[in-house]
């Protein structure tokens, strides 16, 4: 993002977590409230990124292992003559999906609680910041009109 910009910038989805990173703009006269908001957003972003990157990587890895073990059980190789990777059909993968979901259930519950809390906090802080800014703007307006 350009140096002169006064806004946050959001980027393309991350390779591993599929989340879009945000670069936060730090205004020169950032109030403590605004700083709290920015830090909360940064923390949430980092936390989400960590969780999903790890989770997705685990998914890919376990999927590969599952396919490998199944193919082995069937006596097939990972790659066929043309060099294409062998796959299983959706029905065979269904066992893996079910297993993966139940294995990660607790992890997801924890993450959900965490995410909902963070989301509400951030949105509430955003509301406070917006209100504070609006009041500041009104005061500035009144001062200017007075002049």
């Amino acid at each position, binding site marked *: *993002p350009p140096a002169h910009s006064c806004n946050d910038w959001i980027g393309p989805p991350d390779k591993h977590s599929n989340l879009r990173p945000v670069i936060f703009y730090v205004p020169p006269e950032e109030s403590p409230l605004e700083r709290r908001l920015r830090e909360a957003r940064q923390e949430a972003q980092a936390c989400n990124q960590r969780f*999903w990157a790890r989770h997705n990587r685990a*998914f890919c890895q376990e999927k590969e292992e599952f396919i490998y073990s199944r193919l082995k059980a069937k006596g097939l190789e990972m790659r066929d003559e043309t060099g294409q990777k062998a796959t299983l059909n959706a029905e065979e993968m269904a066992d893996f*999906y079910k297993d993966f979901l139940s294995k990660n259930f607790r992890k997801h519950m924890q993450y959900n609680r965490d995410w909902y809390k963070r989301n509400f906090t951030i949105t509430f802080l955003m509301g406070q910041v917006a209100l504070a800014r609006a009041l500041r703007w009104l005061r500035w307006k009144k001062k200017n009109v007075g002049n």
Partner: protein
Amino acid sequence: GLFVWHLRNTGIRQVPCQFVHLCRVANDRLVTFQYFNFLKRMYVTQYNKDLSQRAKPKSDSVASPFRELQQLDQEKKVIHKIRPISPVHQPLSETLSRNELREVKSAAETEGSVAPVRAESKEDRQWKEMKLRLDDLPGILARLSKIKLTALVVSTASAGFAMAPVPFDLTCFLLASLGTGLASCAANSINQFFEVPFDSNMNRTKNRPLVRGQISPLLAVCFAASCGVPGIALLTLGVNPLTGALGAFNIFLYTCCYTPMKRMSIANTWVGAVVGAIPPVMGWTAATGTLDAGALLLGGILYSWQFPHFNALSWGLREDYSRGGYCMMSVTHPGLCRRVALRHCLALIGLSTLAPVLDMTTWTFPVISLPINLYISYLAFRFYRDADRSSSRKLFFCSLWHLPMLLLVMFTCKKSLLDKEDKGDLLGGDHGRAMEIRLP
């Protein structure tokens, strides 16, 4: 009628193999959808988007090993190891070709072999300033409120209103529709507000406004409040308190029960079915002011319809759901998933027969609706027995035209008020009068 006309253009289509050519054409994919049934567009676009969902990073130039699992037919021709899937029947050829172009496009991107890049995906790879542009706002809010889904919800509410055995009141009808629409917008916005990181990880939902940072969460919540509060107020004060209460309850059910439950238990599907069933009940109560058997029957029909619709859709999204942590029957209890879909299709037959018993329609309704209900039940049976991709898709697409058609037939067979008053004439003059399309 509009739905029916579009959906009648049936035909089996296969996408030609020259996908390079197709890829170029696909650049204006989104715009061309305007020409088609928006319902079709919404579902088909969303549904097909999932088919190439991948967990592996997109920028990998090495072909992602397991994307084959989600492929459509044309990709079968490229990758040899996939088990052959029977050609998918798509009612609209252009919709199919556009969608499959997207599929091919996505595959091509993964392989890094095909040069043409869609304008949108190129945009996606750039850094964007998080500033709200006012001219983008209507589009953003439309997507935030899932405007197409809202339109469908409003149309089911209108169906409920139309089926109510009272003289038609235009103002009431418009107020009820507007109120329901606003309530639906509010509910959908809150749903998206809650689900940002999960939506980012699913292909179907990754282009939502909050995921893309086009709008801040605060604004999304404010929008939801500014739709929900006037919507419910309109229903309570402008229509009647019962409808208002139902609307508020539905918003609560959807945002605070269904949305969190999606990640906790498979029971979310049943809650979601209730959410879908309430709008026609709201339409009915808006017209009559009371919650009587007819309202519940209409609600029951929509409740039962949700199951074949959703279960068939979710069958193709199992990978996404598993990775995203969504507890859906199709992943955890696949047998139950198919059984429930079949059960509810059969229930639809029963409910349709109940309509004339409750004096809602004439006996022509169960007779005429029997073929459509039997057809969807047959597809549900095939889905139950085969449990594969093609049967799930067939069932899903059938559900898309089945509901509008059923409601239309129900409306045409609606027992006219005159008939009701003159009970003696029931057997005689019924058929003649029943087939008129009445808008009293």
